[in-house]
């Protein structure tokens, strides 16, 4: 499948919105969203249920009209050139739906007929790609949820998509199905060069699958960027947790060191150390303390999780304080 060209310039972002707003009466389901999704990544669109994820996807795809703002998909302004953009976009919005009285292959034939004469040739490869060739003649009503999700992906692949938009793709899947889906997304990005935009309320899922993400809450994008930066709160932070036998002396040594940007003491000999950069390794800190006669009982790099960051952000939101914008 050709995933390299789209006629709109491969340097343009996969998705870009500016001030995108969708109102239902007085209520803004999405409110001034500025979103930047680069090409060739798995991008997570993360937020709690009701945050506006599906509304944004529906607005992008033309399933509902925007109230304000601008959108670009694959370099095409939408809605002005939505039809051209959608020729290379595959999407599953909410749960994948099909004509239950038709077989899997017949459902794909219906969509292939709508997409164009050349698309019929992609039906068998798409079924094969998602592992449904042997069930293609069964009616969809006999399919499991996981099989329907895979058939939904096959339907997306009929477009030979540069951009796949998947709305809560792992909903209803068992753990094996989730793992399988995750691997499929990664393969599409890493092996086939596609961009995959995944909306989810599952932090763990986004963290494991995506290269970058945006966190959305109450219709607003709160923060977006590369996954490591998001988790670290805007820039990569290299932190250590230490337990030492002489905490005050250790703190004094660390605060005077060029390797350390910040050092704070906790209780019972625990220290939290922020290093100046990646080059300042844990080993160097350990050597410095041991060399000064401080006993180090524990030294552990702090792993920043998206969950931690997400909770921080949503806690701030609930307190109505400021929001953070981080762009990758």
């Amino acid at each position, binding site marked *: 499948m050709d995933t390299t060209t789209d006629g709109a310039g491969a340097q343009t972002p996969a998705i870009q919105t500016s001030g995108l707003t969708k109102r239902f009466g007085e209520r803004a389901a999405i409110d001034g969203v500025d979103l930047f999704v680069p090409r060739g990544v798995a991008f997570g669109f993360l937020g709690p249920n009701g945050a506006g994820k599906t509304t944004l996807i*529906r607005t992008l*795809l*033309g*399933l*509902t009209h925007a109230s304000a703002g601008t959108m670009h998909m694959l370099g095409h302004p939408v809605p002005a050139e*939505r*039809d*051209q*953009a*959608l*020729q290379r*976009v*595959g*999407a599953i*919005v909410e749960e*994948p*739906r*099909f*004509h*239950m*009285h*038709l077989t899997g292959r*017949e*459902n794909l*034939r*219906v*969509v292939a*007929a*709508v*997409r*164009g*004469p050349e698309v019929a040739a992609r039906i068998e490869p798409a079924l094969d790609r998602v592992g449904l060739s042997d069930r293609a003649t069964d009616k969809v009503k006999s399919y499991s949820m996981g099989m329907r999700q895979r058939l939904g992906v096959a*339907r997306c692949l009929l*477009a030979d998509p540069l951009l796949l938009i998947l709305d809560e793709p792992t909903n209803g899947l068992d753990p094996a199905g989730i793992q399988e889906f995750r691997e499929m997304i990664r393969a599409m990005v890493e092996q086939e060069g596609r961009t995959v935009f995944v909306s989810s309320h599952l932090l763990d899922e986004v963290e494991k699958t995506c290269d970058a993400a945006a966190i959305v809450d109450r219709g607003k994008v709160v923060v977006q960027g590369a996954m490591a930066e998001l988790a670290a709160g805007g820039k990569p932070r290299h932190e250590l947790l230490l337990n030492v036998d002489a905490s005050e002396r250790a703190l004094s040594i660390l605060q005077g060191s060029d390797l350390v940007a910040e050092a704070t003491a906790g209780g019972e000999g625990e220290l939290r150390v922020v290093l100046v950069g990646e080059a300042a390794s844990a080993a160097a800190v350990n050597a410095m303390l041991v060399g000064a006669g401080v006993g180090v009982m524990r030294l552990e790099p702090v792993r920043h999780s998206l969950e931690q960051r997400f909770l921080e952000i949503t806690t701030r939101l609930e307190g109505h304080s400021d929001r953070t914008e981080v762009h990758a």
Partner: protein
Amino acid sequence: MNATVAMQMTGADFLKLRKRWVTLIWSLVLTLLPLLLYFIISAAQHSSSPQEHAPAGGVNGFQDSLRILALFFGPLAAILVGSDAGAGDSTAGVFRDLVVTGRSRVALFATRVPAALALTWLIVIFAYALSIVGTFAFADGSPTPSFADVLNGFGFTLLSTGVVCAIAVGLASLTTSRPATLVALIGWQLVASPILTNISSLGSARKLVLREAIAHFSPVNLDGGGGHGPARGGAVTMGSATAIVVMLVWLVVFLALGAWRTRTMDA
């Protein structure tokens, strides 16, 4: 959209319809069974008392079977198929998946109409063939319709069912609800229209009733009297031009409403 894509899309819509066995079987039953019953019962009556009961076939049988098929059960089948074609994608939840292909929504609507007509007419052709077989098989020496009558009856049956089918597609696309469309159209076409036609105080306003405009083109007297058009109760007579205009207005209004709704609704 070029002709190839239009053909493909129509074929896809036809596939969706013909694979819906419940609709297909009911449509066949509704068109074939009444005719079968009519010929069987009439033939039985004729054979038991030839003086009292005319032959089941012949000109009388042809006229009766045309009333059954073209004015009642044919349109009923057309409503079943048309409502399925109009609301099927929305009901199944796949309309949004068709929209995200980038294909024009109007094109998505437009190809439903020929697909629904194709299936409706396929069913009606079977039923009409049955009525012709019955007409000649049970004539029992009585006069039979001419070839021109048979052709005209065929054209009239296609017209009657085709107009109703297209309107059903439009209305179902407008409401996106098959049950609502079925109730509204069956109620209007098969219940309200005959009642309105019989209210003579409505005068020439009855010309706006679609059923009467269609009946104008019947090659036989559909109400048992003489001449064109229905004559039961207050006769609604109209010129061909008026009948054509009335049918076109009904078609244009409902197809336009269906196309508008398909183009503008949230998917």
